[in-house]
């Protein structure tokens, strides 16, 4: 294993750990809300046993709350499953729109903690490239993490993927006009290694608050 891959291996484990911790934290909140609503239903059952009248609409609202959290938990797990499967094949065809959506969902809690809103440009058509899914997600996260520290006044970052000739661009829009690049911090050695392996280039345009990743249609072995 070269130093290059060793750095990325360590970075990858940290990335996986960070995302797993965030997902488990989110699921704990889902379970906590279900737990309280189930407890409240039980409280009402005990009250009914003692002859107290229970409002059916109140019970319906509790049931609705539980259903809402089950749906939320299901969405979190679906995204986690997609993320876990990004390690299945080192090199495969990926839909960039789906990858952006996955990374944005993974980053939502981190964004909320920084009071930043994340969105992707809506699209119906897949944008397929051949790349390394896990490393690509890792690079997108690192760029997003850095971007969130440089968010503009609207506190909203929009990610979009577009094709331009033979190249594919991923654009992070909504950044402040402050220079995002800083020697030794960004792009770091890990960022540079990811850019090299994915054959990407990173450019920033502070004047328009954008960070752009340029990817090839196919990443080589």
């Amino acid at each position, binding site marked *: 294993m070269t130093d290059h891959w060793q750095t990325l291996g360590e970075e990858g484990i940290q990335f996986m750990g960070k995302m797993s911790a965030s997902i*488990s*934290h989110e699921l*704990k909140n889902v*379970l906590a*809300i279900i737990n309280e*609503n189930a*407890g*409240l239903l039980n409280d009402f059952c005990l009250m009914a046993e003692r002859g107290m009248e229970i409002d059916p609409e109140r019970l319906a609202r509790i049931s609705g*709350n539980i259903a809402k959290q089950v749906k939320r938990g299901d969405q979190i797990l679906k995204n986690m499953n997609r993320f876990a499967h990004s390690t299945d094949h080192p090199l495969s065809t990926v839909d960039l729109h789906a990858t952006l959506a996955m990374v944005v969902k993974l980053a939502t809690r981190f964004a909320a903690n920084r*009071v930043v809103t994340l969105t992707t440009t809506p699209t119906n058509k897949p944008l397929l490239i051949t790349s390394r899914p896990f490393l690509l997600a890792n690079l997108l996260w690192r760029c997003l993490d850095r971007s969130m520290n440089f968010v503009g006044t609207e506190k909203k970052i929009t990610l979009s993927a577009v094709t331009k000739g033979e190249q594919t661009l991923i654009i992070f829009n909504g950044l402040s006009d402050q220079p995002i690049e800083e020697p030794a911090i960004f792009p770091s050695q890990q960022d540079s290694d990811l850019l090299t392996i994915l054959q990407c280039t990173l450019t920033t345009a502070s004047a328009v608050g954008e960070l752009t990743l340029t990817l090839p249609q196919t990443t080589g072995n």
Partner: protein
Amino acid sequence: MRILLVDDEQELVSTLAERLSMRGIDADWACSGEEALEKAGRQNYDLAVLDVKMPRISGLEVKAEMEMIQPELRYIFMTGHGSANDFYSGSSDAKTVGYLIKPVNIDILIGKIKEALSG
């Protein structure tokens, strides 16, 4: 006794407050550190139950601010994390009487509240 529940998950704190009220504990709630501090500035509480991780102001920061507003207030922290690191890194003082992992068992929470307020 009057307690303040603080967590950015509104459905969690509002439901927990309702269940505590059913058990004779006067429970108020807030969905952010800012809202909690605003409420603490308007009325007195005996104890605050704080989520450790919240957007903008963390539970530990809320506690530090609240100590200046209501010096006698006691605290219980709750978190989704499985580790006690957050708690022991900044809250192992006499005013902090408990640390609970979500989902919280209401009987354990009530036990901690009573223990804190009887001491």
